[in-house]
């Protein structure tokens, strides 16, 4: 089932928001798509990679977001329509070329997808990247549903070429990760080779050129503003009321639902905004002029609100404008919240329809956070290292990073003292190792190491920062759903390529002591960690341990595909004392203690066999699968 490449114009299908964006790009004749994985953006590149050969387009997982954007910019310079996709914090990594891209502009349509994550469902912050558009002077388009996302992508490519500007397509989790009705259009096929026209004054941002480009950019910004007042997806739903609700992006959907729930459909005007940056001033100005009271509903920062207030001031209007004084600035919105907001705005006690059931006081429901999977190699790495640390009686500071292994923060391991952003484990360790007494241990995943760990490791060698860096090489980018990376020897489209060895890289960075372990061999791993930690304490240099073992989800799905059974383990009830080392200290979710004996749940167990090495009473044994 390969819907995003189906060439049946007019057909209505169900697509994930991100698939709809990918489809929109195909319909717009995209030739190049790049990205680095990150929830909730990942499926855009995955969907395009899957059809890249069939569609004759170029798709890559880049090593990080900065590079992804630069590749897309290169293609745009050659006149090709290109798209770079990333999660909101990915744009921070890409910020340097991003800011400059406003100055140089685009030739082939250039779309930067920023998938934001209000409520931090899977992120370290909830920054609002519409502000990045204001910062850089790059227009932002914000669809409210999968169906609209597909259409707006097409508009965005045209707009980008018309004004020779990059365009940010800003989505949020509830757009990217909702499935909805999408009506297919025609797929456009364009030439896949372009031509680079040398133009030093434009492409070479030395100060003398940059100053000129900045002036041109400011002029362009005014043109863009004017043009956006005619943008198809900005719409005034006029009910000849004195009161107007302005809603941007997905907030429009919640406003429509809330207005319906409160029976206000014919009683209030709605101005739907799909281009929050820059504000389409002519359109908004006209609405303000016909309104006495205005409410701006948007998620996170008051991006539209600020601009609306500024505009009202400039036009000398004295309508009252509500916004973040009654709309939450934290977390995503939903129809419930917007119903409350409307009640506050209309100072009414209009009734909502149903009363929710109260949560019973008893029983108390235990929390269920995400955990390391049964058979996850990261668990074994944490276990072995914790043993080594215990034997040596050390009190390390653990700098963590972003990936599945961040879950090491949870009990029973609690071996993560910091998580800041990708790559910060080694970066912070540079600081922490110099200014306090305890040894510093940095954890970093393989994909993260390639993404942003390498310069920090070089820094540790260059500036002589003692630390143990544990590179947890599970041969994939697991957290975001198993994308390949430069160490895997596979590209986004599945083709094979050189695989870069992490040990070689570490040595090339100047690290003298580089060890490799298989975390499923507990004895050897513990000993290697002991040796590494001793070396760290004696020599006070950066040390690297590469812990290599494939992500168990990959192992399991390969075994299923090949019809192989996984190893099976049983507990010898005579030997088991119910000591709980396997559950409470090792923390395998597939094992539980029932009537003071360990029991292995076969539906959860993946057969890693580490519990067998963990059990102090040798009570676990392998059986015929």
């Amino acid at each position, binding site marked *: *089932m390969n819907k995003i490449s189906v060439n049946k114009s007019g057909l*209505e*299908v*169900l697509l994930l928001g991100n698939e709809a964006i990918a489809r929109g790009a195909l319909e717009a004749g995209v030739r190049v798509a790049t990205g680095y994985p990150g*929830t*909730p953006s*990942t499926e855009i590149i995955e969907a395009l990679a899957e059809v890249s050969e069939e569609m004759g387009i170029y798709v890559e997982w880049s090593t990080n977001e900065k590079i992804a954007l630069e590749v897309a910019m290169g293609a745009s310079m050659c006149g090709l329509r290109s798209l770079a996709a990333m999660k909101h914090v990915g744009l921070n990594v890409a910020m340097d070329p991003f800011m400059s891209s406003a100055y140089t502009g685009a030739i082939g349509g250039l779309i930067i997808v920023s998938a934001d994550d209000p409520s931090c*469902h*899977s992120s370290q912050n909830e920054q609002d990247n519409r502000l990045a558009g204001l910062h850089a002077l790059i227009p932002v388009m914000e669809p*409210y*549903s999968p169906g609209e996302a597909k259409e707006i992508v097409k508009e965005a490519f045209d707009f980008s070429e018309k004004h020779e500007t990059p365009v940010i397509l800003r989505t949020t*989790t*509830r757009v990217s*990760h*909702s*499935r*909805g*009705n999408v009506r297919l259009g025609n797929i456009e096929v364009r030439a896949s080779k372009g031509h680079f026209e040398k133009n030093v004054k434009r492409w070479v941002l030395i100060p003398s050129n940059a100053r000129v480009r900045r002036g041109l950019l400011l002029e362009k910004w005014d043109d863009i503003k004017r043009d956006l007042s005619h943008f198809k997806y900005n719409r005034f739903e006029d009910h000849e009321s004195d009161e107007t609700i302005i809603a941007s992006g*997905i907030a*429009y*959907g*919640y406003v*429509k*639902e809330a207005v*319906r729930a409160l029976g206000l459909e014919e009683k209030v005007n709605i101005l739907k905004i799909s281009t929050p940056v820059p504000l389409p001033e002519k359109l908004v100005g006209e609405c303000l002029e016909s309104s006495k009271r205005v409410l701006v509903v948007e998620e996170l920062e008051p991006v539209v609100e600020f601009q609306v207030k500024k505009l009202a001031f400039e036009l000398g209007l004295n309508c009252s404008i509500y916004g973040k004084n009654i709309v939450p600035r934290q977390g995503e919105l*939903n*129809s*419930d919240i917007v119903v409350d907001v409307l009640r506050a705005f209309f100072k009414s006690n209009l009734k*909502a329809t*149903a*009363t*929710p*059931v*109260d*949560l*019973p006081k*008893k*029983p*108390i*429901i*235990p*929390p*269920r*956070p*995400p*955990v*390391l*999977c049964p058979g996850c190699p990261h668990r074994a790495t944490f276990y072995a290292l914790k043993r080594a640390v215990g034997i040596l009686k050390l009190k390390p500071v653990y700098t963590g990073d972003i990936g*599945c292994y961040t*879950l090491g923060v949870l*009990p*029973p391991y609690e071996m993560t003292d910091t998580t800041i952003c990708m790559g910060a484990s080694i970066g912070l360790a540079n600081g922490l190792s110099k200014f306090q007494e305890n040894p510093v241990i940095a954890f970093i995943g393989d994909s993260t190491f390639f993404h942003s760990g390498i310069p920090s490791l070089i820094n540790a060698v260059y500036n002589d920062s003692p630390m143990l860096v544990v590179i947890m090489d599970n041969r994939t980018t697991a*957290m*975001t*759903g198993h994308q390949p990376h430069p160490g895997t020897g596979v590209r986004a489209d599945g083709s094979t390529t050189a695989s870069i060895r992490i040990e070689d890289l570490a040595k090339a960075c100047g690290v003298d002591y580089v060890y490799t372990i298989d975390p499923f061999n507990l004895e050897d791993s513990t000993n290697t960690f002991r040796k590494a930690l001793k070396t760290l304490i004696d020599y006070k240099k950066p040390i690297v341990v590469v812990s290599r073992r494939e992500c168990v989800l990959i192992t399991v799905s390969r075994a299923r595909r090949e019809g192989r059974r996984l190893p099976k383990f049983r507990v010898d009830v005579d030997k088991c004392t119910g000591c709980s080392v396997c*559950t*409470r200290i090792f*923390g395998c*979710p597939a094992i*539980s203690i029932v009537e003071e004996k360990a029991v292995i749940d076969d539906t959860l167990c993946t057969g890693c066999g580490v519990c067998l090495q963990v059990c102090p009473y040798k009570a676990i044994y392998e059986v015929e699968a």
Partner: protein
Amino acid sequence: MICNIVIVGVGGQGVITLARILGEAAVKSACSVLASEVHGMAQRGGSVVVHVRIGFKEQVHAPLVGKGQANIMVCLEALEALRNIFYANEKTILIINERIIRPGIPVNKIPSLVEVLEALKSCKLTYHTLKAEDIAKEIGIPFAANTIMLGALMGLETLPLSKEAVEEAIATILPKKYVEKNLEAFERGWKIIKQMSSQ
């Protein structure tokens, strides 16, 4: 008419697949639909909640079901039913899989199924229970508890979707080699609820 369905369970139970099948069937039936999922962290054995809103001759504008706004809750795990009970109002119908999955982190006490069902009773809620895993194992497809639950949901006959549309969606979305068994699972779930509601 808009029908709000909240599906809850634990990462790995097939909650998202269930929602996708419903969404697919809705589009095939010319309904407006929005189904919202959360990926990433939520998949690693954590709680999973998916909202599916199906509009029949009415457009769905937003993907999330509000508090007290669920018409139906499909609960693949009993603790998750209770955790998310604020989506229900007194008229909501719940279909609950009689299963408790232990959270992956060490916890002191896990409520029993009986305790959970007692609590739901005290909320004056209408619910049906079934042992989806047992039935799935009987059929020989142990991972299809979600399809059994889907059958049960359709057996209520309250959605604006035909049984055939959902069967077609199962055939479209699931890998070919599992389709036949899943259709069987679907039928079993459907029949069980039919029997329950006729009693």
